[in-house]
Structure formats: structure tokens, C-alpha cells
């Protein structure tokens, strides 16, 4: 399994363009946090995390990280070199999704903690506690998004399903109705202190994110096994 993780890891680490894009989006997030701090908003961290990070930055960062781990192609094409060397497609898919999820979680968690620390306002929770809680929410949300986009990558010749799921997340996850339950967006928003979907508790949303991540990873692995 470790050797199968080497290819997606190298794709992530050695793709300069992916790093530049990730850095640019992260810089945007930190700039928004600095702006909230400069405005002296009492709920600066909440606003920056919900309105900018959860709304735009986290999904886009995960989208870019998954794309980089797959070499900007479909899941099937991304696994082809490993399968050509005799790796079982299911295991290769599992390793690739795991790398994408861990990288996404690390980037998402770190950025959330950074935004919470910089944009911290007077009415926000204590800075350290808020940063840790935000890192947890961001990391979990990013991992769920990575699995979500990995599933999308299983569709389309060049993994165009990934972009479709990004749009579906935006379209369905915005409201607090039942349709949001099936998207990472609604639960991430709840964990960051925004409106919960269906009045769910934060713990229930965390469980839902784990469920979404597991279901998407399993479905993507099944697709890879079936089509490769």
C-alpha cells in the first residue's frame, strides 16, 4: 500500500503549478483574514471562516489537491501506471484517495487555523481554542471534499465529474434544507459555526462528513476496480 501511495504523493509534491495554485488560494484566505482583523470585526474569525474559507477556499483547495494527486486526469487514467505494473486497481485507488485526502486535510486544516488566528475578533472564542477547532473542522471537511472529488474523478474521460461535483456542492449545499445533507458544504458550514442543515448538531455534521467521505471513497474505489 505504501509503494502505491508514492505515485500520487510525487504528483502532489513535484507539480509546481499545483503548489502555485494552492499557495495563491491560501494567500487569498490569509488576506481575507487580515482584512477582517483590520476592520476590527468582533466576529472576524467566524466571518472569514464561514463567508470565505468554507464558502470558497476549502472546496477549491481540495479540488486542486485532488486534481494534483491524480495528475489532472480521471481516476482511471491516474491509476493506469500502477495497474500496468500489476497493482490491484482497488488498492491503487484506495492509496491515491488516501494521499489526496491527507494532503487536503493538512492544507485545509492549516489554513483554517491560520485564518482563525489572524482574523480573531473580540467576540470569538479564545484564539488558540478557536484555531484548534477550526483546524479540526477544516481538516475533516477537506478530507470529505477530497473523497467527494475523487468520486467525481471516476466519471468522464478526463475526470470531468470532479467539476460537476464542485458545482453540485455549491448548488445543493447552500441552503439549510434536506438537499444539503448530502453535500460536504452544509456540514462544513455547521462545523465552522454557520447555519446547520436540518438543524443538526455539530457532532452529527462531523459524523455526516465521515459518512460522506467513506461512501465517496468506497464508491470511487468500486468504480476504479470495475473500470480499470
Amino acid at each position, binding site marked *: 500500500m505504501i509503494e502505491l501511495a508514492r505515485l500520487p504523493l510525487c504528483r502532489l509534491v513535484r507539480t509546481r503549478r499545483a503548489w502555485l495554485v494552492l499557495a495563491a488560494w491560501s494567500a487569498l484566505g490569509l488576506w481575507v483574514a487580515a482584512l477582517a482583523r483590520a476592520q476590527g470585526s468582533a466576529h472576524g474569525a467566524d466571518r472569514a471562516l464561514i463567508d470565505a474559507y468554507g464558502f470558497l477556499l476549502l472546496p477549491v483547495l481540495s479540488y486542486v489537491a485532488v486534481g494534483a494527486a491524480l495528475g489532472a486526469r480521471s481516476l482511471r487514467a491516474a491509476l493506469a501506471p500502477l495497474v*500496468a505494473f500489476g497493482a490491484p486497481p482497488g488498492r491503487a485507488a484506495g492509496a491515491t484517495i488516501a494521499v489526496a485526502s491527507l494532503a487536503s486535510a493538512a492544507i485545509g486544516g492549516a489554513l483554517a487555523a491560520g485564518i482563525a488566528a489572524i482574523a480573531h475578533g473580540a467576540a470569538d472564542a479564545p484564539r488558540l481554542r478557536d484555531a484548534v477547532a477550526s483546524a479540526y473542522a477544516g481538516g475533516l471537511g477537506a478530507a470529505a471534499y477530497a473523497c467527494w472529488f475523487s468520486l467525481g474523478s471516476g466519471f468522464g474521460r478526463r475526470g470531468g465529474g470532479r467539476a460537476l461535483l464542485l458545482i453540485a456542492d455549491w448548488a445543493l449545499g447552500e441552503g439549510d434544507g434536506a438537499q444539503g445533507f448530502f453535500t460536504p458544504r452544509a456540514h462544513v458550514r455547521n462545523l465552522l459555526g454557520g447555519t446547520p442543515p436540518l438543524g443538526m448538531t455539530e457532532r452529527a455534521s462531523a459524523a455526516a462528513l465521515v459518512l460522506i467521505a467513506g461512501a465517496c471513497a468506497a464508491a470511487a474505489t468500486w468504480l476504479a476496480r470495475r473500470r480499470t
Partner: protein
Amino acid sequence: MITLDRVAARRSPMTLSDLSAQWGPGVHSIVGAPADGAALLFGLVCGASSPRSGQVRVLDGSPTDASVRRRVARIDFDPSLPEPLRVAEALSLAAKIRGDAGLEIGGRLAILGVETLAARFVRSLSLAEARAVCAAEALTSPGVRAIVVLEPLVAMDPRAARRIGDAMRSAARAGKCVLVASSSLRDAAELADDHALLQSGRIVARSSSIEALYGVSGQGVRLRVFARDDDGARTLAAGLAGIAELTSLERSGTSVRLRGASATALAEAVAHAAVASDVEVIEMRVEPIAAKQALAAEGGP
């Protein structure tokens, strides 16, 4: 090692129907145009495609078994290699996945004369170099027991093309099954010990001699004869006209294309005509007839 039992499969535009064959250790060729289905057949052997009916057994197991996949290597026309890695890293990754230990990378590439590629990034390789790396990996892995190669001499690094025949024979001597698909009769004859003729998804003949396949193809054989100049070709064509063995004859510049049921009969007719009309023949080449061309010639769709 590889057994197909009444296999039917389809992946547009290729179809295989009622295909039964068995290949053991050695170098075997499948001769046919790409549309005849060799790529689909290889997909079945590698577990990348599933048969609609019938059974495919590779190394006494199903091609989709993890233990079988590791021991089967496929050299595609457009091979998949891990693009962010260097060639040496890619071979080392392949060795780990296949369970091969302690292999020296330079030596593996040297078998096809491409050891200078070791430090290059895979994404910087040309198609021919990538195919050579893929072939070196497959031919030198001790764990690999079955190798399928699409068009081994087409778009192959020239250094590798010179050595791949010997490397494949050496792998065969080590008890491996090497299956080669080619639309070139000459390549098949050069590389393999026995041949199967694949036409429109069916194996229509098997033989250890390419010559023997010409007569049973049902579509005959096409011979292209090159004269030294236009006049020579014109004289040769005139000398060949009216020979009973010919089903068609056409001249284009310095070459004459003729078609008939038997390559030997055609070659004899050319020899007689060349001697009778005192024309110098500088090259004579057998050309495969693609399924579509054959159908068109027969007035089919």
C-alpha cells in the same frame, strides 16, 4: 499459460467472437490489423476487459486476480508510465509492486540498450523511449510470466528495436509466454515462433510458418514488387498480366501491387515475369490485407 475458451467480447470498434486458443512458454504472434481485435484480446489477458461469454485463464487463474495481475505485463502502443517519476524510480516502483527484489536498474534498461534513460523524468520521454522502458521493465522482471506486446517494432526506440527480438526469445527460454500482436507479417515472422491469424475478431488460422497463413486467410495475400524504375515496373506489370494466380494487379510508380491466394505462387509468377522480360526486381514485400480493405475488395460493407 494463457487459455481462451470460446471467448466473446466487445469494446467498440473491436469484437471478438468464439475465440479459443492456448499459448504456453515461447514467443507467439497474433497477426492482424488493429481493428481485428488484438488490443481487446490483450485487454482480456490483462484483466482490463471482461469477456461477454467464455472463459479466459492466465497463469492458472483469472486475469483479474491480484496474484495474476502482478505476473502479467502489457506493452501498449501508448504505454502508461508514472509521469512524475524518473525512469529509475519508475522501475523501482514496478519492482516493489511486482515483488521483485534486488534488481539493478541500469542492467534492466541495458538489455534493450536504453540505460541512458535511467535519470530522465518519465514525462520527458518520447513515445518510442517510453515503449522501450516499458518493454525493459516487462522483459527483465523475474516475477512476470506472461508478456503481451502490441506492435513491438513500431514506434520503438531504435536501440531497443534492434535488441527486443533477442530479449523476447531469452524471456521465452526462461519459460515466459510472450504474445506479440502485429499487423506486419514481416515483424511477426522475425519475432515469433508460431503465428495466429486474427481476422474480424476470429482466429482463422494458426501455424508455425507465416507462409502457411497466406493460403488459409481467405483474403489472399498482397505482394508489392519494386522495380528499379517506372519502365521496369511497367514492363513487369505487362509480363504479369494474364497470369492465372493473380486476382488483381496495379502499378504505381516503380512498384507493382499484385494479389492472389498464395504468396509462393505470386512470388514464382513475379520471378518468371522478371526473367522473361529482363526486369531487375529490387525488393519484394508481402503486405497484410486489413479486414476493411478485404471487405471492400469483396464488395462488402
